[in-house]
């Protein structure tokens, strides 16, 4: 049991690196089951006050085909604030600006005292400096990630680490097609 246990009065804000998590789930490949983002947020927040959920991703220019647009809409419907940068590098198949946007948002909210606990849903070690700045401002940072996309360094930097493998987050179906949204 951690020394700092969960406090129901804590204000929690989620910062999710969407592509990082989707890639991890894809790599696990359990029957192509989809990640239930609603359950993810609910389980990570627990009994604490969830005051904000951010999902960071890239998007294609309007008028072009974007296979994640539906997912963004779905997340928006669930209550996530989508911060989608129009900065996808087609040649290198990698997203730009996203990490910095997430780090800026997390740090600026910490300085504005918008939350008590930041939950970073990503295993990318690029966020370690941002985590340290948030911690220096007196906030707690929890990291949630799958084992296949997280390093020891970021685990140690966080005040708490959530192993997403152990959390029931993959939504099963009956094979007949049903309603997926709660």
């Amino acid at each position: 049991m951690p020394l700092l246990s969960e406090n129901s009065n804590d204000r929690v804000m989620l910062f999710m690196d969407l592509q990082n998590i989707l890639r991890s789930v894809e790599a696990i490949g359990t029957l192509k089951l989809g990640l239930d983002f609603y359950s993810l947020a609910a389980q990570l927040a627990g009994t604490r006050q969830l005051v904000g959920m951010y999902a960071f991703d890239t998007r294609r220019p309007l008028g072009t085909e974007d296979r994640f647009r539906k997912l963004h809409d779905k997340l928006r419907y669930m209550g996530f604030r989508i911060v989608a940068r129009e900065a996808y590098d087609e040649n290198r198949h990698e997203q730009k600006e996203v990490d910095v946007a997430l780090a800026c948002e997390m740090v600026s909210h910490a300085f504005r005292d918008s939350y008590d606990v930041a939950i970073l849903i990503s295993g990318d070690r690029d966020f370690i400096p941002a985590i340290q700045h948030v911690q220096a401002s007196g906030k707690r940072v929890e990291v949630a990630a799958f084992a296949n996309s997280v390093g020891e360094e970021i685990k140690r930097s966080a005040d708490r680490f959530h192993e997403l493998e152990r959390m029931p987050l993959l939504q099963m179906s009956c094979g007949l097609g049903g309603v997926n949204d709660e």
Partner: protein
Amino acid sequence: MSDQIDFFELQRRFQEEHGITDADMDRLKKVQVLSFFTSDEGGTVMARLPGGGVVFRHKDGGMHINPGETWVCELLERGTTFFAIGMLKLDAKFFFDLRADQVDVLADIIWKDNQSILEPRFEEMYRKKLEEMLNERLQESKKREDEALATVDELKTEIEAIKTRNKMVVTALEKELAELKESALRAPLAEPERSNVSGSPFSIELNPRIRRVSPDELYSEDFRHRNYFVHLSADQSVLTIRPHDRGNIVCLDNRITLSGLGLISPYGGPADMPAEYNPKYGGYVVYLKYIPSTSHY
């Protein structure tokens, strides 16, 4: 008489070995080591030769000889009386100035001359010291033994107290068990009550009985709702089944079908699955990695 011959022989050898002239040898013969004292009559400072002859201080001898001092002196003979001229005072300074080998020679001579007196004294000293040390050790050991015995007594008392307490508890439990057995025999057979979560809109069982009836199908009398959400953990160890009006899993005749369950967890025939209600998830948690033996089915 033979001793005298030996002594002269010794003198001759000494003279030859060290190349001493006859004149020097004559002078050397006049050198004596004398201890001076004050005579009882008249307070004269004097010494006595080994043969009993009396020696007085020479008035013009240079170095002043005091009573109680030992000196290496040269003797001057005046008729039947000898007069001593001090050459070297044998005091502490003299002995401290000796070389180590000279000290060893002296110590050897002193030891040989006094061995018969010193040995019993040393033995006595050592014996006393050893006895003292042995007594000290003995007393210390005795003290430790007393302490250890006291601790053993304390522990014995404590163990006795624990035994008595345990006996009382066992007796009480045996009595209670007997009463329970008796009341169980008297009571009519009835369906055991199952606990519900009070206040829950879904009246969920705390200890559900969930049975796997086919590779992809779960059955439970506690599946009383029409729709459920079912989630799997990525490590495939846990399944959560949560009733919800908009759940994507439809329940028919207390059965839910989960597409791909047979691939996640191998099916070995109908079996109960370990499950419990968990308020954290608002539904049942089924443990897939801990399926019990199905041999009795």
